[in-house]
């Protein structure tokens, strides 16, 4: 993945509109319907007419895979969106299966190369009723799974639980310390009416009594599959200045490979200048790993660093101010991206970090060898 000054950094592109639907466990309407709601909201928010949208970056299906569902019901293809929304002037269209940060990177490249002027970036997650998104059981195990599946290592939380056990062992950390991450997410979710856990506070005792999924990870350390949709409008910095909201500039974009330029170097924003952060939290320990990889704290220190309200609103570095995956719902990091935009625009309402100028994003699984991205969004 690209990392360096050749990326769409340096405030040349900006996000100028957001639209999203509430996180629902299961939706009564089709994914296409809620995706259109989000797209129309984003257009209205940016003060743009659909005829002005000439770029589209979509993601037809979530990680649960919706291949058996018809287009527009359990998945949404670019042609379906273009036809349904009446986007007749698309000059750049792409559907990807990847991270929301990758969608943003593609949008920014398309804008900078002059292929288009206004990109609609759309993500939707579909959680079909009547079954888990992923299942690791079956009569056969092939490929790499032959070495894990016969031992009850079935993917999802199990593959991360072992690493967390190792982290606790090496760094003298306690499983109870993960509550600081979950507590921040759930406390912030109480300020986000869009969140699945809105209106449902969580105390430490209930957290510690929740059943283990794979020890040391309990049910509440794992995010919750939901159905929701979100859309962003991305444009060039020049065009962004003429639109209703203060733009959220993409000031830095970087991979996380050792030896490459960091998001701090690319953006010129120092760690001490970050006002708020959105860190992917599909499982609670991901926040620890990300903080250490980003150098916010040292290796093995994140478990202690997160204690004492430091990552809650009012603390030194509020993290996942809309609740993140653990508080709002599993949205693959789109919720993090959207909340970063909201904070930089100053539209967080009760959960707004006052005067937020720089928001750090960590999108993707921090333990994954696949792509993950650190992004800086800035107000100027």
């Amino acid at each position, binding site marked *: 993945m690209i990392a360096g000054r050749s990326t769409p950094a340096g405030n040349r592109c900006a996000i100028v509109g957001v639209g999203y639907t509430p996180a629902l466990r299961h939706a009564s309407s089709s994914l296409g319907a809620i995706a259109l709601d989000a797209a129309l909201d984003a257009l209205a928010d940016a003060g743009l007419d659909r005829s002005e949208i000439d770029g589209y970056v979509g993601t037809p299906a979530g990680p649960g895979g919706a291949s058996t569902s018809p287009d527009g019901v359990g998945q949404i293809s670019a042609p379906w969106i273009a036809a349904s929304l009446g986007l007749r002037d698309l000059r750049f269209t792409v559907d990807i299966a990847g991270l929301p940060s990758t969608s943003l990177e593609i949008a920014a490249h398309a804008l900078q190369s002059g292929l288009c002027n206004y990109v609609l970036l759309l993500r939707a997650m579909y959680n079909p009723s009547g079954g888990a998104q992923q299942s690791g059981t079956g*009569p056969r195990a092939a490929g790499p799974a032959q*070495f894990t*599946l*016969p*031992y*009850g*290592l079935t993917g999802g939380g199990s593959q991360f639980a*072992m690493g967390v056990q*190792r982290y606790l062992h090496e760094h003298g950390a306690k499983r109870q310390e993960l509550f600081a991450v979950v507590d921040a997410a759930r406390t912030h979710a109480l300020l986000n009416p869009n969140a699945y856990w809105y209106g449902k506070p969580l105390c430490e005792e209930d957290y510690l009594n929740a059943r283990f999924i794979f020890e040391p990870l309990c049910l509440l350390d794992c995010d919750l599959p939901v159905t929701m949709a979100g859309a962003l409008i991305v444009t060039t910095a020049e065009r962004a200045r003429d639109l209703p909201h203060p733009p959220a500039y993409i000031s830095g974009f970087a991979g996380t490979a050792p030896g490459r330029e960091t998001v701090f170097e690319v953006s010129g924003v120092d760690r001490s200048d970050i006002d708020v952060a959105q860190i992917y939290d599909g499982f609670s320990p991901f926040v620890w790993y990300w903080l250490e990889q980003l150098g916010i704290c040292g290796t093995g220190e994140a478990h202690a660093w997160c204690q004492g309200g430091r990552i809650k609103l009012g603390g030194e570095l509020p993290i996942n101010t809309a609740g993140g995956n653990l508080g709002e719902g599993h949205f693959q990091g789109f919720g993090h991206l959207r909340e970063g935009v909201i904070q930089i625009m100053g539209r967080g309402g009760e959960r707004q970090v006052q005067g937020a100028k720089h928001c750090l994003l960590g999108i993707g699984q921090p333990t994954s060898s696949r792509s993950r991205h650190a992004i800086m969004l800035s107000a100027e």
Partner: protein
Amino acid sequence: MVRGFEPPYAVAQVALDEQPDLRMIANVLECDPSDVRIGMPVEVIFEDLTLECVLPQFRPVAE
């Protein structure tokens, strides 16, 4: 289905004396799963699941 998994069961990554950088995933059997600790010495055993399927597994040994 190879077999059902009734929790609790312990899944471990085992480093082999003969080749420490080769890590094997296996269950630790013949002990209470909550007694399994990082660094505890184990030895291989072979679990017959079916006539055609035998799994290498591990059990604790005295240090």
